[in-house]
């Protein structure tokens, strides 16, 4: 069931990262983005990479899931290296750019693997709650964002179910050559998309039944608490930002 993991899917194990408040995770991501976008210091990126790998390890999600993600986009890295070389950038800059991409992808994977869609929805709503005075429907916005993030994992899970049930009734996918696999997968695509959209509609309906409301603490009470680990994680991110500010001489 959880053998095949996709970017954006949740991995339900018990780790201290899973228990961190989703708002803290999103704020930490935002803080990490500041040095990633602004800094060109190699040492800082190496430290941030090391720190990210430590977090990946503590998440108890098998590390191969994270590395599979990087392996899946290996051609993108090669293309990027060509682009950087063609623009005449030196090796250090190329390494820094690659490190930025790796940290960002792995950090996003960490958040998606350790935060359930409901927690993520809560996190986005809470993070945006300072904008409540604009009278925007932030709940709907959070719902759309989470639907976009979870769409592809849901699509792949649905595809697996459709392929399995089609295999049981004569349209085998698993014991075929690559061309037949493409034929089977493409012929089941129409049903897969229809079922995925139906599932999203059902989930929206289920959220409504649970009275999803931005101003109430209803679900995930244990994970929505701000605990020591969350504060500690935030402090480390603040140190990265502080170092970046110091390095750029902004103070």
């Amino acid at each position, binding site marked *: *069931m*959880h*053998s095949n993991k996709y970017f954006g899917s949740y*991995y*339900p*194990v018990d780790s201290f990262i899973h228990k961190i408040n989703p708002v803290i995770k999103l704020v930490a991501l935002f803080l990490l983005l500041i040095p990633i976008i602004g800094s060109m210091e190699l040492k800082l990126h190496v430290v941030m990479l090391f720190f990210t790998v430590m977090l990946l390890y503590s998440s*108890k*999600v*098998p590390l191969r899931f994270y590395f599979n993600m990087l392996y899946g986009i290996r051609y993108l890295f090669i293309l990027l290296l060509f682009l950087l070389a063609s623009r005449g950038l030196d090796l250090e800059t190329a390494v820094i750019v690659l490190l930025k991409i790796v940290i960002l992808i792995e950090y996003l994977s960490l958040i998606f693997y350790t935060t359930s869609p409901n927690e993520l929805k809560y996190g986005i709503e809470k993070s945006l709650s300072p904008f409540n005075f604009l009278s925007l429907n932030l709940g709907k916005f959070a719902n759309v964002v989470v639907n976009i993030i979870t769409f592809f994992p849901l699509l792949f899970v*649905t595809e697996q*179910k*459709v392929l*399995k*049930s*089609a*295999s*049981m*009734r*004569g*349209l*085998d996918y*698993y*014991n075929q050559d690559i061309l037949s696999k493409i034929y089977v997968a493409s012929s*089941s695509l129409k*049903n*897969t998309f*229809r*079922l995925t959209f*139906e599932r999203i509609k059902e989930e929206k309906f289920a959220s409504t039944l649970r009275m999803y409301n931005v101003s109430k603490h209803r679900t995930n009470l244990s994970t929505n608490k701000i605990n020591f680990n969350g504060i500690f994680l935030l402090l480390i991110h603040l140190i990265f930002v502080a170092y970046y500010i110091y390095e750029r001489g902004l103070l």
Partner: protein
Amino acid sequence: MVIKFDNVTYKENIMTPLEKTYIKNLSLIINENKITSFIGDSESGIYKLGDLINASSYVTSGKIKVLNYINDGRTIKKVNILRMNVGLVKLNKDEMLFNKTVKDELEFGIKYFKYKTEKKSVRVPDALKLVGLTSDYLEKNIKDLTLSEIRKVSLASVLIFNPSIIIIEEPTYGLQNKDREDLKKLLTMLKTKYNKTIILLTKDTDFIYGLTDEVFIMNKGSIVSHGGKELLENEDLINTYNLKAPEIIRFINYANKKNANLTYTSNILDLIKEVYRNAF
């Protein structure tokens, strides 16, 4: 012998924190032209047996021989012939039905197994009739069906390609009282008239008592007890594995404890006669 399990172990999510063993060193034989029931709670691993026999999942170790095919974890050649002979009715609708209309769903099997496609127009309404639905359902959208109708369509989508082995997960789940009796008659007819081998994976001991020829009780992926339907008369044994003995058995056992001396029967009318004789 139609199916043979030889020291079969089945695990999912191997080498991850979510690794789980569903079937442990299982060895058993399922005989043909019989109704065999596997009973056990949700953690017993009974539902994985269907996937393994149908070869929609591969064993982790050991081997399963079904007809002339062997599932030992390696790719099976001409697996479609095996699957055409082993019809699996899943409990979960999402793992069973994926087409838009009932007609598409029923035609899917005969189209891809290439089974009597020229008689499609006859077989489709016949399959529906067999499970107690009319041709009016053909153009209906799957999502507009009730749970009971979904279960019937699932069964019809398998019966349509005439498998020799029929596996049904929780056959009575979602069915109404009359449908239960109809299903009992249908399964008996499939066994006696068409010589089918039927495997029921269920918790519903009331349904299988009086219907089944053999019973396997499973607990945590292993067989803990095996025998005829008399096995269900041992209330203490059934209760040990988080199951409930058939109501009729519980009544007879309770009456016998009060010195009633009733004989075991699966027919309620026979029981009433017996009670009447005892009372007067």
